């Protein structure tokens, strides 16, 4: 029977691969959540504490700032987060492969 503490869990990762992966997932998720909630609280803050006209007067790339921030920037930010995640995963996979190859070569030498 697997002991409860030996079952995999996102918050109690086992082994270096899973630990590294969960760490980077937490970072990406933090960036994802902060951008969505942060941008909307910013828009809401501008609307409620300043003139709503301010939102339409501020333009960025030709668009009112809240349209640009939400409609243009956030999808771009998501793409960027995905790229960063993939780069990290590729490097991590390469390191793991490298480690496992060295391990196999060493054990092969011992066998000889």
């Amino acid at each position, binding site marked *: 029977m697997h002991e409860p503490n030996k079952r995999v869990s996102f918050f109690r990762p086992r082994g270096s691969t899973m630990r590294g992966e969960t760490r980077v997932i937490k970072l990406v*998720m933090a960036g994802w959540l902060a951008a969505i909630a942060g941008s*909307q609280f910013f828009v809401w803050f501008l*609307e409620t504490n300043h003139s709503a006209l301010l939102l339409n007067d501020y333009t960025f790339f030709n668009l009112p700032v809240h349209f640009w921030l939400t*409609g243009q920037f956030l999808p771009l930010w998501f793409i960027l987060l995905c790229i960063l995640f*993939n780069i990290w995963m590729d490097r991590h996979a390469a390191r793991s492969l490298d480690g496992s190859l060295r391990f196999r070569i060493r054990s092969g030498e011992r066998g000889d």
Partner: protein
Amino acid sequence: MYNPPVQLVPLAIVAGMFALLIISGLRTGSRQTSEYGFSGGYTGRVGIGAAIASNWMSAASFLGLAGMFYLKGYYAMAFVVGWTGGYVLLLVLMASQIRRFGKYSAPDFVGFRYESEVARTLAALISITITIIYGVAQFKGIALLLAWIFGIGYTPAVVIGASLVVSFVVVSGALGVARNQKMQYFVLIIAFILPLMLLARKLGYFWLLPQFGYGAAITDLQTQFGFAWSEPFSTVSLYQWLALCFTLMFGTAGLPHVLARFYMVPGIRDARWGVVWGLFFIALIYWSAPAYGVLARLFEARAGFPFNSADPLAADMVVLTAARMAQLPAWVIGLLAAGGISAAFSTVSGMLITGSASFSHDIYPRLIRPGATESDKVYVAKGFFLILAAAVMALALKPWGMIAEIAALAFALAGNTIFPAFLLGIWWGRANAAGVIAGMLTGILVTFAPLVLGDAVPLIGTLLPPTASAFIGAPLVLAVMVAVSLAAPPPSNGIARFLARDVHDCPEEP
């Protein structure tokens, strides 16, 4: 009585586009083996991305989002963020892990991971319900476009649309047509963006990148015609906006036909990079769709139309209306119509086939006729396909909202049920059958409670808007799954070991 004329040029373009897709599908079918052998690296990833985007693009993206923007302004941005942000969840939490399970469908995954036939059946029923709801949105889009092309009413257009979808599936199946998704995406994106560029050019805006050019149109609407959409959170609260946005994200990572892209991808690394390309291709549509809504408003303003239009049917057709009001050439309008119909057709036919396969594979041989042969299952799949198409058609006769709103209900159901089942199934080894069954049942309750009790109990309607219930629903279902799982015996050692060793590469422990 005035009968609008049949739009011959658009009709010819629609027929031509379908002929092109079928012919390229025939070639894809015969080439597929060699292509899998040699595609890889850069081309493979772009191809996977185009397939993800093509699989994703439906009437909700092609028609619904622009209509939502036209009618509700900034509120529609919740759809843009929800339908792109969900791919981040999908990539980091599920994409590569799902493939390691080696399963073929959401019910397969749930049945295997939770070692429960009940959970598998429940997941199959949920998948079929999602198919029906999502299908209604597609049928509505198809019917609106066919009604315009043939100059007929909405109701006969729904019936014709349903007949065409069934015929399309039968003909494709008989000819052995494989979906050339890569080509389909590029045809769709051209059909969507080229007319937009011509619209922006006609109005004198920055037409090379109309995704930015429409900002000037917003200013012109305000300064010249005194029209502005309401302030972001004046008619819709911040809570409602965020609830819709997160519901769509959870739903994206829980929709069975979206997850299906990742069960059998050739390589994990290519699949991950394919998601990035897919997200970029999808974002191209969502960066563009709001522009249609804004430009349609501007054309209406210039023509002296009042700004009080709140007709959801008219709003869902705004992409086409803008092109018609700009008097773009008939072939351009036909291209738009063909793109919309093609997007809706491929989505709904794929979902109906998956739904009927789910019934014949997961429900029929287990609940109705144990010991059914393979040929029985094929017959049942065909019969259930027709039943599903008829059910979707019947519901589409009286749609309960705009295309994007109908689709959002399917996302809410997926976000409240399949998403938590997959999330804990992958990331928590203690999650078990009792937990997932309780969780999915709670998810069904949460999804449909606002529709049934929303009027009687205003608090439910406020906290759980029908299209946005997964914001509270998904965390609630996760909590139920954790509590019930802890109260029930843990899953078998075999599954615990599989999850640790094969899914998460954990080292073996003594």
